[in-house]
């Protein structure tokens, strides 16, 4: 939880915050800060929020020095390595700008694209995503899986973004205020923003440079994780307000299957030879299908509890009454 502290009363309202999560990027940080400073030279008030995600190298020290040298550069140090989602969330929480831009700390994004993102935002969008054109990455292990993944994500979530993996994005503050990121949800931020904040979303091409320092922090082994996350996102974005619908649909499908098996059984026992086993196996299958339907229906009811319990039960925190057993 960010520690609340009043901002200085004399400062101008910050126009723009650039949020950069850093994990073991000590070589990149100075160049990054310079590049952002150059790119934003024409802006009156901006800030650069560096989030050190528990780096094990000298990133924090380097960033601290840079922050001390320029009041527009701020450093948020996380207590350990929480991963990119939490680092971004921390940056968003500490950003003061009306518009927030997120980007990677490895210099593969180009801060010179920021003004173009902002111009696009001014056309009436809430979120402008960059997509990497002429991407400087390995074809087989990076580009192909990424292309397939993005098509699937777009198809499942209904948010047509070509490149969910590109961190360079611009957001209106109001959108970020309605988001609470957890797990690895930064990857699905546009879909979440569309579902929970009704954000108007578009994308523009951005530059992409080859990695200058360090190594890439991703690999090919993410398919299972991303699939699970995608399924979760699908449910959250489509059914968060009526989960019973989703589970009831599943239950209906299972029941239908059960009915079909019952029909097949009735039919075959009339026509076919009266094998004794047939009398047990097919009804067994049907019963399994019906039990699945019941189970799903009950889960749907539990999901309704999960949806409503926080708000229905949690009006006021209970008073710290004497004699109440410890919580």
């Amino acid at each position, binding site marked *: *939880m960010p520690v609340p502290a009043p901002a200085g009363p004399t400062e101008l309202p910050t126009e723009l915050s650039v949020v950069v999560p850093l994990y073991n990027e000590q070589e990149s940080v100075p160049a990054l800060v310079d590049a952002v400073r150059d790119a934003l030279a024409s802006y009156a008030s901006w800030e650069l929020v560096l989030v050190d995600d528990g780096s094990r190298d000298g990133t924090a020290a380097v960033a601290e020095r840079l922050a001390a040298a320029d009041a527009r550069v701020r450093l948020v140090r996380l207590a350990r390595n929480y991963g990119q989602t939490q680092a971004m969330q921390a940056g968003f929480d500490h950003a003061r700008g009306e518009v927030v831009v997120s980007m990677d700390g490895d210099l593969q994004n180009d801060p010179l694209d920021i003004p173009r993102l902002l111009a696009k935002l001014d056309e009436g969008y809430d979120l402008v995503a960059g997509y990497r054109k002429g991407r400087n990455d390995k074809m087989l292990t990076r580009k192909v899986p990424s292309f397939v993944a993005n098509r699937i994500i777009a198809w499942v979530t209904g948010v047509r973004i070509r490149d969910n993996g590109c961190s360079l994005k611009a957001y209106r503050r109001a959108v970020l205020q309605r988001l609470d990121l*957890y797990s690895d949800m930064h990857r699905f931020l546009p879909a979440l923003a569309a579902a929970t904040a009704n954000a108007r979303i578009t994308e523009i091409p951005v530059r992409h440079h080859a990695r200058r320092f360090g190594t890439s922090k991703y690999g090919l082994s993410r398919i299972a994780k991303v699939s699970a996350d995608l399924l979760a996102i699908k449910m*959250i974005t489509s059914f968060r307000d009526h989960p019973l619908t989703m589970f009831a649909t599943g239950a209906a499908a299972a029941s239908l299957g059960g009915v079909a098996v019952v029909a097949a059984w009735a039919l075959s026992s009339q026509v076919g030879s009266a094998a004794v086993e047939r009398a047990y196996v097919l009804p067994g299958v049907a019963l399994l299908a019906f039990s699945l339907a019941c189970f799903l229906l009950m889960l749907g009811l539990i999901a309704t509890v999960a949806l409503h*319990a926080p*708000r229905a039960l949690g009006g006021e925190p209970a008073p710290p009454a004497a004699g109440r057993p410890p919580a």
Partner: protein
Amino acid sequence: MSSSLARPAAPPAPRVEPDAPRPTLDVTVLVPVTERPAPLVELYRAYAAPLRASGRSFEFLFAASPARRDAVAPLAELAAAGEPVRVAPAERNVGETALVREGLRESRGRIVVTLPAYYRVAPEAVPALVDAVERGTDVAVARRWPRRDPAINRLQNRVLNAVVGRLTGAAVHDVGSGVHALRREVFEDIPLHGDFVRFLPVLALQRGYAVQEVDAAQHPGDLGTRVYAPGVYIRRVLDLLGLYFLLRFLDKPLRFFGLVGFALSLVGAGTLFVLLVRKASGETIGDKPLLLLGILLLTLGVQAVALGLIGEMIVHFSAAGRRIYRVRPAPATPAPPGAPPPSR
């Protein structure tokens, strides 16, 4: 503040009890009195001596369930004689974790040391742990080293440590010591639920605190052979399973249930596919128990995924307005211009 699922939107309740104890002492030694405690008066005398010699102000706080009333009764004499001994009686019979939580609420020390109600480490370990915390670590853990107890004990310990290390990624060498020293704020910030007090160092690491192991001589009373009833081991295994799941999948349950469900469904679908091929070649399959197995596996797989989805929903709704990360406090300089904004 511990997370309560029922009230995600409410801000952490301020601790406003008018008679809430202020940290007025250097050290609270918190002793949860659980099963088979050692005679507590002697325990107090043994551990208080080196702490007193170290020149710190301290108190011993014994947190006890009603069932342990007899064990803590003799302490009243100590208190009457002016020794800094207090008893925090729990109102019902609760486990060690709840006792520690209750005791923490009652405690007055700036540093809180948890000490089992039996002999684990030499008394000198307590001031050594307090030293480590005063030197700057957030949590100091006694590691019984060198070990002098029977091989069977050490084997059990080694297995436990290895498993915990493997599951949590934390390099711990003595999970079972039960002797920890923590700065009070750190202790209050670590969510303690269920049976997890014994994994305090692991939970502290998870919250991003610095944890340091301090070698401590083994107490002679800790040298007896320890072999427990099978139920104890089963409970340990369940504890570990719960801890592993908590650390690994707390905010992403579908990754676990999805994998399980996918694997089950895959086997089920494979079975059905084999049957389909057989049917295509003219066999009847409606009378094969294999059909039942295939459907059963598929059903189980769907159920596992559905459970994972429920988990994701719970996570989604409890994530609202909450943050997992913890920001490292800035070094003590006058408020920098880059102070964080008012939280929303």
